């Protein structure tokens, strides 16, 4: 059973929901499974969403997210709050997915293709703006290799080198897939480029 914040006595300790991720991680490292449950509540949806965006179906994404959280709990002492907990757990989950993905697939070899041809697809008229804002829909236009590379770099926050290491693929191949995927997304999601960036969101 998940320990709800109300299960803690307010007179002795602040509710878990009021604690920062780093504080919760410290509590979890000391054996607090309730604190880790709170971290799972906060970041579970983000991890599951990333896995789905990488190409996992809902069931697989849930299973891998569970495995990622269990692995994170085993190594929670290694999390020192130098980066956001959400990024840390996403990288763990992304590596789990990539490990599984590599068993049945690998990055497509890069061919000399016409990038304009790659970008052929549904119209990008202004009237289609709402659809273009849907990242999940746009990601479906990418090849599996492009989707994985873009998700690793922009969803899991990995560098190209880290993504290449996770994929056990040449760095140049990963860069090429990421660039092609990015170009496709740019074409599909172009209206968002003019939107202001909420600094608070990026800080997360």
């Amino acid at each position, binding site marked *: 059973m998940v320990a709800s914040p109300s299960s803690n006595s307010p007179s002795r300790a602040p509710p878990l929901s009021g604690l920062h991720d780093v504080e919760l991680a410290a509590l979890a490292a000391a054996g607090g499974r309730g604190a880790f449950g709170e971290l*799972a509540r906060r970041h579970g949806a983000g991890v599951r969403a990333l896995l789905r965006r990488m190409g996992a179906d809902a069931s697989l994404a849930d299973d891998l997210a569970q495995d990622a959280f269990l692995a994170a709990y085993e190594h929670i002492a290694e999390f020192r709050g130098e980066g956001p907990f959400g990024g840390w757990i996403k990288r763990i989950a992304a590596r789990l997915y990539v490990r599984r993905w590599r068993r049945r697939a690998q990055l497509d070899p890069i061919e000399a293709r016409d990038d304009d041809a790659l970008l052929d697809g549904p119209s990008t008229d202004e009237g289609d703006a709402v659809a273009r804002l849907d990242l999940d829909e746009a990601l479906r236009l990418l090849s599996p290799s492009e989707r994985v590379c873009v998700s690793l770099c922009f969803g899991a926050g990995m560098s190209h080198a880290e993504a290449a290491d996770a994929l056990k693929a040449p760095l140049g191949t990963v860069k090429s897939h990421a660039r092609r995927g*990015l170009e496709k997304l740019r074409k599909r999601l172009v209206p968002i480029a003019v939107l202001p960036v909420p600094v608070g969101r990026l800080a997360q």
Partner: protein
Amino acid sequence: MSDHPSASAGPGANAFDIQLQRLFAQTPAMPDAMAFAERLQRRLDRRWAFRRVMITSAGVAGALITLWQVMSAHLIAQADIASQAPAAQARHAFAVALMRVHMATNLIQALPFGGEALWLIAGLAVMAAALLATRLFETL
């Protein structure tokens, strides 16, 4: 080409890259978020319970081995005392010990396989138990 993903699309790409990171960071609402967390909590609790059982089992096994060693040492000490006792008592103790060893040997020989096979089976059973425990731990 820089190793940073934002630099992969050339000049002017940063704004779009930041927006893309922002889109990735946006978490869609998932109605089963609580169920997901509860399932994870149950798995954590099961793992913890399994680990406690394993640690307790290891402790009990260690205690039993220690007890056996202590008792063996005590028996040896008794045999030493018996050897210093009068000859009749010593002969009696030796005969009893010999009879026990003979009975145990007969039991092993009565099996359809030899003593070495017994040790081999015991070793394999321990390995199988260890593998099973590992698989269980992985599943939990």
